[in-house]
């Protein structure tokens, strides 16, 4: 029997996941939580085998941060990150945290139980890319990594000078990237761009 801890702040989703796993014979839902930071404590004891971890959890606690702590303290616990957000950095961060699987709640071809089975068997196929979204005229995968860095900084409400200092580039380079992104998307201002990328959840800098 696989002991599962579910971390998900949406009550509807949480109970749906719990129901799906309870219906499968080899899974036992040990606990469900809303806040990722509490999951680190729950894993101290209780023989948890698998954690289903949402990325954006209650009180703005990041599932990615919690997953990294769990994997560092208990390498044997398997962790599946779950999200419905197309945030481009989530896949990379999950990989860096040592997570064992990454399940897109809405886009994945696998059911939740299938994803759990594959992770427990060590055969989970890691998604190659984040599902692209349209940012007005441009597909999200048309942006370069550096352009995405600049967009993320803009979404934090930073000024050009602050972005330049943060990314170790000149202010002109920042302006150059923004000009390119505006050209690709067809927006006229950075604020329109930021509103759209946050609306589409391409960038969620808090996590």
């Amino acid at each position, binding site marked *: 029997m696989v002991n599962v801890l579910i971390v998900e*702040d*949406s*009550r*509807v*989703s949480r*109970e*749906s996941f719990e*129901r799906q796993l309870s219906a499968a014979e080899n899974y036992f839902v040990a*606990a469900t*939580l*809303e*806040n990722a*930071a*509490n*999951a*680190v*404590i*729950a894993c*101290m*004891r*209780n023989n948890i085998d698998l954690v289903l971890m949402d990325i954006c959890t*209650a*009180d*703005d606690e990041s599932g990615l941060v919690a997953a990294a702590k769990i994997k560092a303290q208990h390498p044997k616990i398997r962790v599946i990150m779950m999200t*419905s957000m197309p945030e481009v950095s989530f896949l990379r961060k999950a990989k860096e945290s040592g997570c064992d699987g990454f399940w897109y709640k809405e886009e994945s071809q696998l059911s939740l139980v299938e994803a759990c089975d594959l992770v427990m068997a060590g055969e989970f196929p890691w998604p190659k890319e984040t599902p692209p979204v349209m940012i007005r005229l441009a597909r999200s995968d048309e942006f370069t990594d550096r352009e995405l860095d600049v967009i993320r900084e803009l*979404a934090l*409400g930073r*000024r050009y000078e602050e972005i330049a200092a943060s990314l170790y580039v000149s202010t002109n380079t920042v302006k150059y990237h923004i000009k390119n992104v505006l050209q690709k998307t067809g927006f006229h201002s950075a*604020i329109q761009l*930021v*509103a759209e990328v*946050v*609306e589409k*959840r391409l960038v*969620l800098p808090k996590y």
Partner: protein
Amino acid sequence: MKTKRYHHYKDAALIRHAIDSCPDGILVAAMDGRPILANQAINEISLQLTGSTVMNAQEFWNQVEEHALQPFADTAEGGVLACLVDGRVWQFTRRSLTIHQTEVYQYDAAEVTELYRYQKELRASNARTQRLHERQRDLMKEIVQNNLEKEALQAKMHIHDEIGQALILTRNALETKESPMEMDNLYSMWENLIRDMENAAVSKNVKVSDPEEELKQVAAMIGCRVRFSGRQPRERKALLLLYAGIREALTNAVRHAGADELLVEIKESGSFYEVSIGSNGTRPVESTVREGRGLGGLRKRIESEGGEMNVRVSGSVVLELKIPRGENTEG
């Protein structure tokens, strides 16, 4: 002799003429304010400020200071800016000099009308940018909040679709008299739907989680009970800082001291909450506690919000926090 005096007079007149044609104001005066040398420009300024040419340099300077404007951000040398009746802005400086072992004051005035205007425009423009910047930050917060509300709405729409589907299947089942096994599936489908609807009904708005309930749940999972004494913060930010502290103390108390009870005492003191978190841990602890990633991270978070953190060792470890009350952002 007469020629020599004539030349001397002519030199003085030339110097006078040169000083008077200088566009800057020049005034040299004794320490008691008696003017020794004043050019035309400074006298014109004095006329506007005091109603007469310079009669007393100290009184002149007092008038300059009375008409002082807000200085430029980059005039750190201590000049005084003053706007005259004719609308021109001058920058005045005063310094003491020693001439033939006599101490005197030299006053200089330079016209900076254009510079002041640009500086004023720049200041207004910076203030406007700052306001726009703040609006942008607020907008970002609203967008994130709207996104979360939209997600809750989508979940409800999903349930709505499922109800439609279940109704169609039920009608078909009743019309075609399905097998008992399929009827069982239909029955469990309705059960799930009812459960989802119960959840959706309470998530009318984006739900604010109850940190106390969940923390007590995880504490119980690791065999520890958390007791509170005093009123918990009503401000969301302060509440979340408190729970970050409790989580850290809980982990350490159970892991290092074998505690099974944690006591959280909260007092309101001025603009802070004073929090003390202790445990009944009995395992011996060292006289000082090394701050690793957990405690270090907590200290950084508390201090970045204007709070304070202290780890006291008195038999067991006590975590003391001073959390700023801040504005009320409850709910």
